[in-house]
């Protein structure tokens, strides 16, 4: 929905002007619903005879005015816009006042909670057949430290990044898909080498190269086996005084997503980019 209907200018306009927009994750992925939200969500589902993955419109008195399955709502012009326009016309909805819209709009924390204090937080972007998505993930302080150059590093010297740390990194290299849980993937191979390009008493600049293969089913039910293969390159700056990376970028240089549906294989290009955000802090 983010890359289809919620990126449609008319949907953005109608939803913003005539409704109070809110999203609700049915599985608390990265968030926790309050008991009040949970109770209200259950009431709406019962009243609207609806399922988990739906768009609902609820009148100000709590009465459901309509619902639409997300598979239909993905098509803005054919389905979602006529559905919303119909409700606006039927209910004679007035346009919301700008001040009211501003007052109700949430300020979401990015990167979203929760993050363990001391972990390194990374921002990941990916593009694939289903469009573009972004995500955040974290590596433990121990894993992040394993990317650091050796203490007596010299310019042009190279070293291998421990495979276990690479595996935990590459678990997150999956494209926009219905199966969004990294822990369900299996890294089949993970290699990264680093080479120091310049060394001063304060800093080490380095570049990275390697390959990865990740098994990550495209559906939560495991019905669409898929694999991602990629060449990975990177560049980083390590602060020797703080013993921490101050900058780190990774990107795929040619990546493929192979998957099969009902026995038919398919291959589509994907791409990944990662940037170090910094140390997770207490919130």
């Amino acid at each position, binding site marked *: 929905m983010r890359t289809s209907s919620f990126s449609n200018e008319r949907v953005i306009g109608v939803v913003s002007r005539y409704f109070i927009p*809110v999203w609700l994750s049915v599985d608390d992925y990265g968030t926790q619903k309050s008991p009040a939200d949970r109770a209200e969500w259950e009431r709406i589902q019962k009243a609207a005879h609806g399922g988990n993955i739906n768009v609902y419109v609820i009148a100000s008195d709590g009465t459901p005015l309509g619902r639409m399955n997300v598979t239909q709502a993905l098509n803005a012009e054919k389905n979602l816009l006529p559905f919303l326009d119909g409700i606006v016309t039927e209910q004679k909805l007035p346009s919301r006042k700008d001040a009211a819209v501003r007052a109700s709009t949430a300020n979401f924390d990015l990167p979203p909670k929760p993050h363990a204090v001391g972990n390194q937080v990374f921002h990941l972007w990916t593009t694939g057949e289903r469009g573009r998505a972004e995500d955040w993930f974290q590596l433990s302080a121990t894993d992040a430290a394993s990317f650091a150059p050796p203490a007596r590093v010299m310019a042009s010297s190279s070293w291998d990044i421990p495979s276990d740390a690479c595996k935990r990194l590459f678990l997150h290299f999956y494209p*926009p898909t219905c199966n969004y849980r990294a822990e369900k993937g299996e890294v089949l191979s993970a290699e990264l080498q680093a080479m120091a390009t310049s060394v001063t008493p304060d800093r080490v600049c380095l570049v990275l190269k390697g390959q990865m293969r990740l098994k990550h089913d495209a559906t939560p039910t495991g019905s669409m086996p898929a694999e991602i293969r990629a060449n990975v390159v990177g560049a980083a700056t390590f602060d020797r005084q703080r013993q921490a990376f101050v900058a780190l970028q990774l*990107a795929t240089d040619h990546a493929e997503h192979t998957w099969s549906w009902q026995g038919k294989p398919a291959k589509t290009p994907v791409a990944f980019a990662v940037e170090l955000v910094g140390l997770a802090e207490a919130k």
Partner: protein
Amino acid sequence: MSTRIFFGIGLVGAVLLGMGRAQQSSNAWPTPERVAELVQKVKPREPMAWTRIPWVASLSEARRFSREEGVPVFLFAHEGNMQLGRA
């Protein structure tokens, strides 16, 4: 005949040279500029369009604003998370 042989040798040579270059490019160390260029290709230049929708923080909040303004709630119930994740 000799033209064909020379053409064949030339073709094989060109293919091997091309394979060598492809192998070299996948084995070569990247430059920081090349890495930055690849990152920029994937990283969006602007915040994603869906973030322009004035989302309210929670369902309870949405219902409260709805009652106060007399405006219906548009509720998107989904798996995953709108901010993080790739569903």
